[in-house]
């Protein structure tokens, strides 16, 4: 029978400060993702290829399984970010950033389209990819929408969820050397620092406070996105 002294190690940023730090980190990573396409197609593809190689080194079991899957393209579309990610699984695995235009990411996606699409708020998608949250629960609550090849999405989800610890923010930060070193410090201190910033912000005059909120929305890529609004079906999406 079970050892009563076994360590109870399963906990996911369940302190208020931890949750605040996570929100900050999520916002920062979303803003960082928004900058990727501005590097130009070639540079952004190279950067994301490097990220994929790094992730494959950290999670060989999952990436071997993803490479063994039939060739297919999954669009991961955060509805509140300026960029979507197109992930190609199979032997020629790749990752591309698609900037959102007036019609969503349809133009950037091109005629080839995607075999499956996962849409949802950026923070939920990040939590899902890192295995911090249950995909079925998100789906039941309608916070996540999927279309296209359901089996492909399920295979991708189950493969990534089979990893013990997937820390995409830390992995992405490790590409930019100094940021990787700063991240643990940031994680330790972000919660209390943000609490102090919030306390100070509440003392500001309302017009100034609203101005800061607008600036944050622009930096986070959420300006102009209807709350909870999901874009329409993408052209060229395979089914």
């Amino acid at each position: 029978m079970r050892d009563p002294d076994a360590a109870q190690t399963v906990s996911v940023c369940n302190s208020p400060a931890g949750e605040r730090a996570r929100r900050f980190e999520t916002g920062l990573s979303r803003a960082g993702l928004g900058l990727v396409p501005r590097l130009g197609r070639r540079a952004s593809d190279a950067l994301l290829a490097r990220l994929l190689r790094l992730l494959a080194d950290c999670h060989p079991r999952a990436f071997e399984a993803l490479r063994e899957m039939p060739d297919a393209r999954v669009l991961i579309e955060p509805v509140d970010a300026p960029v979507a990610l197109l992930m190609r699984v199979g032997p020629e695995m790749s990752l591309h950033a698609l900037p959102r235009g007036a019609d969503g990411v349809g133009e950037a996606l091109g005629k080839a389209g995607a075999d499956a699409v996962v849409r949802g708020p950026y923070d939920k998608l990040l939590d899902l990819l890192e295995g911090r949250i249950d995909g079925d629960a998100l789906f039941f609550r309608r916070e996540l929408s999927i279309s296209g090849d359901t089996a492909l999405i399920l295979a991708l989800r189950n493969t990534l969820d089979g990893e013990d610890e997937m820390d995409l923010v830390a992995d992405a930060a490790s590409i930019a050397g100094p940021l990787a070193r700063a991240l643990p410090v940031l994680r330790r201190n972000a919660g209390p620092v943000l609490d102090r910033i919030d306390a100070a912000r509440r003392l500001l005059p309302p017009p100034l406070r609203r101005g800061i909120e607008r600036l944050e929305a622009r930096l986070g890529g959420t300006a102009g996105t209807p709350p909870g609004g999901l874009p329409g079906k993408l052209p060229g999406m395979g089914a």
Partner: protein
Amino acid sequence: MDNFELICPAGTPAALRAAVDAGADAVYLGFRDETNARNFPGLNFTRQDVADAVDYAHARRVEVYVAINTYPQAGNLGPWRKAVDDAARLKVDAVILADPGLLDYAAKRHPDLRLHLSVQASAANVEAIRLYREAFGVRRVVLPRVLTVPEIARLNAEIDIETEVFVFGGLCPMAEGRCSLSSYATGLSPNKQGVCSPANHVRYEQRGGALASTLGGFTINVFGEGEQAGYPTLCKGRFVAGEGPAYLFEEPTSLNAMDLLPELKAAGVRALKIEGRQRGKAYIAAVVRAYREALETFAAGRPVPHIDLQAMVEGGTQTTGAYTRAWR
């Protein structure tokens, strides 16, 4: 007072570690093929994964059960027999079987291997359970989710093997192991191929603010804007009959019998099972942790706490299912 055993699901090695660390007494899992009833893409364990899982669990005094609970296809017994042989070789603590032929094979070939009767066998009466006990030496029966608590108590009074009941997760309202609804729509069933509503036959469409789920080309539900969704299974489909669309078999809802721990203990139940090998490790960690806390509190003689698991449930609703109603 002996506490219940808590039997927890795992679809991946990471989920197994989450279940063990969160307080499982035993973890059940399946091989990566059609020999188990959760044969979904990207899910389940290779033989090496099972070997590693057994090492991890046994080091923490947690048991590992392997579900080989689909029905072998005529003329193709090989994969099922190999699964039993491999489970025995990998030194798992029990196998969970449904097919009488496979039970016979396991009992004769591996007399020391502990046999549990799967819920897929749908053994719900004294005579059936005695038969499995006497013929194959089955040590535990997982009861189908169609019995009331008083019926479970009467059953336990007349049989001399352990009983295990589901306490949390997705519900299968039909007689398990005998349901062919998925097969009608897709040609594939949980009984033979290990898949209820196989993912490659499922599609979701946004229809304005509504979400439509289809299976094998048939629309089986349309969830209105803001309405919580459920699994795309026919038993939880919403169909037009008579005056309008309605759930004819069962609503999308999850079982949660945490409040019934005293009644289940009084009824003589030995083990409590959490459903959800197809769910992510975050679900498994949260649900197992909640049930471990409830069991420890109950064992200490204190009232069973109310632990909120609402965020994890299908359709946004919870039920005590057949345990508290005269329902089949």
